[in-house]
């Protein structure tokens, strides 16, 4: 019974730690992956003046040349040169501030996954007439549907307020309502015409990589290849974590929460094991007294108790690991539906269905931490056993 308690405590500790981390990591990684895929890309290049005051005159010099060179990097999946303007979007019923992104559809689909999130209509193409793709949240706000007109009002290159009508050809929905309500996608050539900019002008070069983990390395490469432009403050290169420091902070915060939660689990586990092992030694006072009387010295007595805990904790940890693997795999494939919380989560940029994710190394680290905690927790009860006097222990009648 006592052994079963320790094994169960270890297993539950393992499962609690791993499954919670799987959920938090899945949630965080999904948010980051979605942000990179739909909103930020891995890397963006802009004119530093454009970042300061958002005036459309601050363009990237030689953007086509830059884009072409970066497209040749083997780590790069896609490069898209964009125009980016702050505007008012309005319908007959309502209006609101938006960012209008003028994109080349053929390039944009290699950088952004918005085309995969179209829920009504279709994505932009070259054949349509002044098309626009908007988010479901914005469509709801402006009460617009497919084939309706959306009026975009902005300041052109001369500073004059100008308007243009676009026809909604597609409505998308991502897991981030904030993004959906604030962004409108149009063709670059249409936006250029509206603003008076040259068709090849760009405010932003968005870069998507084949592997998100390679972001920093590619940034270094770009900074090296375009040293003069960067040193001359004509362009600035930023990774997603610089574009959205809030997202980066969120990732770090979730990692901290996961760590704290693990510590709480380990502390609870330690208490459970200390209590169980103290009871175990008290119950076996006579047996331990007899062993000491026969000739089991302190070193061997201590080792006996510690080894018992090691075997039990190993069994429990392995059992916990097996169950954790099953749970994590199940929810990694099928997702964990947060149901009623879904709408609320979307409003802050999170998906309602979480696909668990655990780094392989974390399983081993958790096992080691759990076993280590069990062993450390057993030291005090083991030292207590060493203090037993055989003459009195043999006659103990407590249990």
């Amino acid at each position, binding site marked *: 019974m006592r052994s079963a308690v320790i094994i169960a405590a270890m297993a539950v500790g393992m499962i609690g730690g791993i499954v919670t981390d799987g959920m938090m990591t899945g949630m965080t990684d999904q948010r980051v992956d979605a942000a990179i895929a739909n909103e930020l890309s891995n890397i963006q290049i802009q004119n530093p003046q454009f970042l300061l005051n958002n005036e459309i005159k601050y363009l990237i010099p030689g953007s086509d040349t830059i884009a072409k060179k970066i497209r040749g990097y083997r780590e790069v999946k896609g490069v898209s040169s964009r125009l980016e303007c702050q505007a008012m979007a309005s319908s007959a019923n309502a209006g609101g501030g938006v960012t209008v992104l003028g994109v080349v559809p053929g390039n944009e689909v290699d950088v952004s996954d918005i085309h995969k999130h179209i829920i009504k209509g279709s994505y932009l193409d070259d054949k349509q007439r002044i098309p626009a793709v908007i988010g479901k949240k914005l469509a709801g706000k402006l009460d617009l549907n497919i084939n309706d007109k959306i009026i975009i009002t902005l300041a052109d290159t001369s500073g004059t307020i100008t308007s243009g009508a676009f026809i909604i050809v597609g409505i998308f929905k991502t897991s981030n309502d904030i993004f959906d309500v604030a962004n409108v996608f149009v063709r670059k050539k249409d936006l250029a015409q509206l603003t008076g900019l040259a068709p090849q002008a760009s405010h932003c070069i968005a870069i998507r990589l084949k592997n998100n983990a390679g972001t920093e390395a590619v940034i270094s490469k770009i900074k090296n290849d375009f040293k003069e432009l960067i040193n001359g403050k004509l362009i600035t290169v930023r990774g997603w974590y610089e574009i959205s420091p809030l997202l980066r902070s969120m990732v770090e915060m979730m990692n901290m929460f996961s760590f704290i939660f693990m510590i709480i689990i380990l502390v609870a586990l330690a208490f459970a094991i200390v209590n169980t092992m103290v009871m175990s030694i008290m119950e076996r006072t*006579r*047996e331990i007294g*007899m*062993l*000491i*009387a*026969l*000739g*089991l*010295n*302190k070193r*061997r007595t201590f080792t006996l108790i510690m080894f018992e805990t090691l075997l039990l904790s190993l069994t429990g940890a392995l059992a916990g690991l097996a169950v954790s693997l099953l749970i994590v795999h199940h929810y990694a494939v099928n997702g964990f539906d947060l149901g009623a919380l879904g709408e609320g989560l979307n409003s802050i940029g999170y998906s309602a269905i979480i696909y668990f994710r655990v780094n392989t190394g974390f399983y081993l680290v958790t096992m080691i931490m759990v076993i280590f905690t069990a062993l450390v927790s057993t030291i005090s009860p083991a030292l207590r056993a060493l203090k037993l*006097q*055989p*003459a009195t222990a*043999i006659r103990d009648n407590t249990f």
Partner: protein
Amino acid sequence: MSIIEAKNIFKVYDETKVPVNALNGVDLQIDEGEFTAIVGPSGSGKTTLLNIIGGLDLPTSGEIYINGTNIGNLSAGKLVDFRLHNIGFVFQAYNLIPVLTAKENTEFVMVLQKRPKEERKRKALELLKAVGLEGKMDHKPGQLSGGQQQRVAVARALASQPKFVIADEPTANLDSKSTNELLDIMAEMNRKYNTTFIFATHDKRVMDKAGRIITIDDGKVVNDEKFV
């Protein structure tokens, strides 16, 4: 030749609170090959004396020599080691390790002594045969009767090749038949291996088998009688 020599042994429990004088100046010598019973009423000090002779407890004052070694001068670690190689124990109850078989229990002290595997197996078999439990070697304590468990305890006590065996009320929990069987085995072991046996007992049947009876009362030896 004396293998045990106790000189002016005093033992006081709870010295700082209400002192209990368990032994009040005990002197005795026990020779090799003796089959000795220490008898006395409850609280007379016989268990205390046995614990001190067995190195499970130390006297408050006085000296105890086992085979010429003053065990009072040994460190705690050396005392444990001394017990392992010189003294065998048969307790009143909870003698055996419940998860080990009779053979494994008998081998246990030899494992602690780091004796080779083949020697352990051979000796365990020999001893279990000697105590009449050859057919129960692979039984665990839960599958043995009280008397059989005590016989395994005797085999284990002798397995360490001790100078003497301490048995504290070994027959207290046994019926008449088991008691007689156990005593016969112990007497046989005493004859066969010339191992000294020292009992603390109330049991008249044990006293009847003993070659020497030391009577203790109020922590003092009041009578010491040898029988041929």
